[in-house]
């Protein structure tokens, strides 16, 4: 088995592991701890250079109040949901169908189409910035939630298809053949046989896509200009004052923004971990 479980390693390695695991864990968590601490502070502490010491005042609630009253944070959060949920549904629905087709039908260009889907994952998305912006502008979707959702769906479908195709490929062919013998139409096979069987994969994909899209900052800033459609990740910058970087409000806002994916993660933890490895088992 690889990797070798730690308790089968030499005793010295086990000790090194036990010492360095907590250390690296702490180093890893320091930035998050810093954000939590900063969200409690007032601006005074920050200006006075008191970044890591005891906060002179406990201001978490007043910071939260400021975050929600000074800026359209509620609107941004709603926008984030409006972008994330349709994208999740769209990308997963499309990829179930493409995944099924690519896994189960033999046609000439099957492999090529599949490679095109995979290749999409290897395109650094920064390259697409200008063409995508121009495209959405020309079709009149620039600066709209619809535009952002459509792009996300298109871009995420590549990864989702890879994921679903491999999962469906691993299902026993006999099930489908049995259904065919009984005279089920191709759509019925997809709907009644394949979809129920892929439920774990769909759940895992939903969780993954939800977190991907929720955390997207790049495309939100490229395709959205106004408050009306700005998701929360990009909206955080409006917490800054005209002159001042309001680190305390930014930290509080970041925590607020991080809550939905964190909740999602804990609720669906099993699927999430399954999702990270699912697509990797069979090429």
């Amino acid at each position, binding site marked *: 088995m690889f990797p070798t479980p730690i308790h089968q390693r030499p005793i010295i390695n086990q000790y090194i592991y036990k010492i360095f695991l907590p250390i690296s864990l702490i180093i890893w968590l320091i930035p998050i701890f810093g954000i939590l601490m900063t969200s409690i502070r007032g601006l005074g502490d920050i200006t006075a250079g008191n970044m890591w010491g005891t906060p002179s005042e406990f201001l978490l609630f007043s910071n939260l109040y400021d975050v929600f009253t000074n800026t359209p944070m509620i609107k941004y959060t709603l926008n984030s949901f409006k972008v994330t949920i349709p994208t999740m549904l769209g990308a997963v629905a499309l990829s179930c169908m493409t995944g099924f087709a690519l896994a189960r039908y033999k046609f000439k260009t099957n492999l090529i189409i599949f490679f095109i889907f995979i290749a999409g994952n290897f395109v650094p998305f920064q390259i697409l910035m200008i063409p995508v912006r121009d495209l959405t502008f020309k079709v009149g979707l620039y600066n709209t939630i619809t535009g952002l959702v459509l792009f996300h769906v298109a871009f995420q479908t590549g990864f989702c298809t890879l994921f679903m195709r491999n999962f469906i490929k691993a299902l026993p062919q006999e099930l489908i053949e049995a259904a065919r013998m009984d005279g089920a139409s191709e759509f019925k096979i997809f709907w009644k046989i394949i979809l129920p069987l892929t439920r774990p994969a769909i759940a895992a994909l939903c969780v993954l896509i939800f977190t991907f899209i929720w955390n997207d900052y790049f495309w939100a800033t490229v395709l959205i200009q106004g408050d009306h459609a700005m998701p929360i990740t990009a909206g955080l910058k409006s917490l800054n004052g*005209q002159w001042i970087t309001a680190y305390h409000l930014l930290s509080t806002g970041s925590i607020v923004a991080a809550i939905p994916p964190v909740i999602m993660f804990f609720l669906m933890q099993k699927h999430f971990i399954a999702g990270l490895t699912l697509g990797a088992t069979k090429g």
Partner: protein
Amino acid sequence: MKKVIISLIMMFGIISSTSFAGTLVINTDTSDAAPKEAFEYIIKKFEEENPDVTVKWNVFDHEGYKQSIRNFLNTDPPDVANWYAGNRMLPFVRAGLFEDVSDIWKDSGWVDGNLSENMEHAKKSMTIGGKQWGIPYTYYQWGVYYRKDLFTANGISVPTTWDDFVAACATLKAAGITPITIGSKYLWTTAGVFDYLNLRTNGYEFHMDLTLGKVPYTDPKVQAVFDKWDELVKPGYFLENHAALSWQEALTPMVNGEAAMYVMGNFAVAPLKEAGLRDSNLGFFQFPEITPGIPMAEEAPTDTVHIPSKAKNKTDAKRFLIFMSRADVQEEINKILGQLPINKNSSVKKGDPFLAAGLNMLNNAYAMAQFYDRDAPAQMASEGMKGFQEYMSNPDRRQKILERLEKVRQRVYK
């Protein structure tokens, strides 16, 4: 076919003109909380006073506005747009995109009292080619913010001449205090120092000539500015690791009593006070005189309102500009903004010594510079400020930096 098109155009013309009668479209970049609140307030007040006018107000993102204004002035002009004074408005004035509003400035019948008189000190920064192109409604002062208690403890009184200023720095340095704090990570803070040194050494007219690209950076007068700067940089009177800090992070040494002065805008007061400084230990003074006899011009970035020359409803737009110039309106706007009104008859929030000092200084100023990155074109400003920062870290490279800036000047102002 032609007839159809013509009648369509005419119909469109009628529809659009009727829909715009009594509608005043205002575009602003006031996306930050306080400026947004200020505009909410004045638009409401304007509509109350002018019931026949409905205002349609579009708020743009502060940064994005710099790009959008180029677009909308040409393609979809509002009736009023906010912008900045001085050379910042020069490209729009040159391209004929801003309306000449000299009549508002001249005609005392428009407003309560005489605009030209009440805003005389700001007129220069609104004038291009002998005409005025907009109305200023807010600005804030720059100068030296200092720790009163550190000055008292070291027996220093507020310096009014360059020699006093340098001597004060020397005393502070000897006492183990950083004389001047600065955070130059984002470059612009260095321009505040440069502007004041130039304004005091060579005067407002020379400073404007330089930022307009009429004078080479290798000019002996520019060298003289750097000679003065040398007197501060070479003995190490500025905060040591300034290139690693933002302006905000450079406040920390001042709060903790490790640094005594900061050449800054008035917006530094709010965070300093929030961090625990009080009127008793935080003070403000005008940047000291360098060349005796040169009239004292100040750095006062000014926000303005303009009428695009392609605006549809210029009549109401003018009413709005006149409204914005009124003493009572400017007073209210600036109470919300925490800044200074331009109209001399406006007063400021009582009990704020910094606003009072700023108001007094600017009302008596010879002229107003708008800050290096507003006075000089963007490309020149960014190279210039890079140069200033490099100079402050390595004063020995001065000659090379100035030669480089001169090359940039020749390229930018072609």
